[in-house]
């Protein structure tokens, strides 16, 4: 449930998190709803735009930082997590989000994902999964279904799709959730909870690409809500949700309330000049 903020405490409204740039996305792209959900979560938490940093890679989805009032890093394909990790370590005072697409995070950038999870640095990671490479005009991605025919797989995708949430859970993540761009309220709520989680949080935002792989209808048939009876501390149960292919569970799969090691800046008692004095006459 989104906490209701007393009106006198609302400094930042959704409009305060918007820039003058008009999103370059196709009309109907799921990413519009993800952007709005992020802005809703920011309103709920009243984050000062000057203390917010959004890091992305390359893709349609990775253009998002330019549309949010924040310090943005639109880096190179697949490398947002190392950049976000470095930023959060150098500047623990900032709220840091890492965002992008399934190509960015599960294809070229997947090597970084388990390690970002293991390090458990306080970053909110949101992957907009459309099961396709949108920006490059519709090639299969690691989450595209088997048999999927695209320009890069004219006789059907031979590889089986991976289950990103299973990889993230297996790496030891403490906050794992899935939302859908057609359910923006729940998605905003997942993002807010992820941002409040003190460690690395992962939100899988299903966000269809209307131009190259329109899955709105398919997803509406596949989705269902994870029941309230699910124990969010039960990793085995979370793993069963994560491995589902026929259906698409939405909600919090796993949430361990406290992150293991709190993030801190470089030890403040380390003084470079003292250290170098050691080498002086």
């Amino acid at each position: 449930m989104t906490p209701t903020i007393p009106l006198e405490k609302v400094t930042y409204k959704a409009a305060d998190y918007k820039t003058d740039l008009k999103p370059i996305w196709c009309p109907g792209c799921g990413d519009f709803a993800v952007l709005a959900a992020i802005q809703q979560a920011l309103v709920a938490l009243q984050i000062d735009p000057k203390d917010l940093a959004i890091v992305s890679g390359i893709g349609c989805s990775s253009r998002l930082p330019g549309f949010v009032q924040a310090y943005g890093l639109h880096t190179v394909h697949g490398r947002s997590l190392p950049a976000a990790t470095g930023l959060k370590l150098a500047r623990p005072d900032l709220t840091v989000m890492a965002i992008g697409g399934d190509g960015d995070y599960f294809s070229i950038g997947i090597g970084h994902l388990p390690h970002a999870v293991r390090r458990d640095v306080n970053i909110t990671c949101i992957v907009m999964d459309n099961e396709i490479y949108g920006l490059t005009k519709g090639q299969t991605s690691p989450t595209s279904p088997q048999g999927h025919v695209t320009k890069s797989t004219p006789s059907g995708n031979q590889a089986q799709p991976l289950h990103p949430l299973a990889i993230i859970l297996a790496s030891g993540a403490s906050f794992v959730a899935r939302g859908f761009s057609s359910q923006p309220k729940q998605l905003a709520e997942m993002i807010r909870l992820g941002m409040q989680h003190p460690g690395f949080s992962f939100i899988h935002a299903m966000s269809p690409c209307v131009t190259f792989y329109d899955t709105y209808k398919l997803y509406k048939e596949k989705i269902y809500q994870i029941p309230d009876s699910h124990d969010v501390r039960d990793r085995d149960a979370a793993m069963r949700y994560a491995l589902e292919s026929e259906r698409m569970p939405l909600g919090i799969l796993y949430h361990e309330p406290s992150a293991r090691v709190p993030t801190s800046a470089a030890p403040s008692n380390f003084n470079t000049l003292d250290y170098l004095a050691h080498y002086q006459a």
Partner: protein
Amino acid sequence: MGEALGYASMTEIPVVVVDAQRGGPSTGLPTKMEQSDLNIAVHGGHGDSPRIVLAPASVAECFHLTVWGFNLAEQYQSPVIILSDYSLSFRTETIEPFDLAKYPVITRAQPQGELAPKEYKRYKINGSYISPMALPGMPNAQYTATGLEHNEYGNPAYTPEAHIQMSEKRWHKYDALRHSHEYVRHFGPERARVGLLCWGTTAGPCRGAVHLAAQEEIALSMLQVQMLWPLPEDAIVAFIDSVDIVLVPEVNYLGQFAKLVQGELGVRVKSLTAYGGVPFTRFDILRKVHELLGIAEPELV
């Protein structure tokens, strides 16, 4: 790595990278030294991606040029590559204690005073081509550092005007360094018959050769270039004018630095390369000087 360096060039983010060169290509000679990453250090990256490349020749210079590497990165908002090599990175040397008072700490230009909303231009064009860089936490200075071509506000812009304007900004900001005499070291006589133009650890055997030549009364001088990019043109041209023959010794097959100097300055130099994964000795270099001057090698008994 090249892609991220290009990102740093494009977004004008200070970063310092150390490359301790080993024999290549590929895994090559991973336990032998070589000076063969010069081309990739200077030119590696997509598009026209400017950076600064420094090359220390000794342990003390590693300290000196690393401090200055950070200072230059901050001042020019640029990637800086420090080209060490295997032999240097494993070396122990006795050195003079560092005088830290001689090392200023330079930080990047930052916006001053309060900014009105929408006023801040991250890539503002001004006389120096170096624009004040906001840090997260500064009010009203939010921007997105994008690898896409951009306008002064940092917003994506693909017009010919934007690309021309920003390409010129990215390159012109280094102009002062091209004319600097800070990053070269001269040894030997003011005027000489042969001049050694060298970089990195090859400066060691070159100095040995200058010393040996003096004993033989051969006028041999040398210029060690510590900043390989942008090339300190004025200092190199002055050195070339002070000698009859320029010899560029370096440990790589292609003669990468010789080619760089020739291409940039339109001069002809003689190249001396070693490519066995082993550094030069001073005798190797002196032998080449003898050959260039038509001096017969002394008979070995």
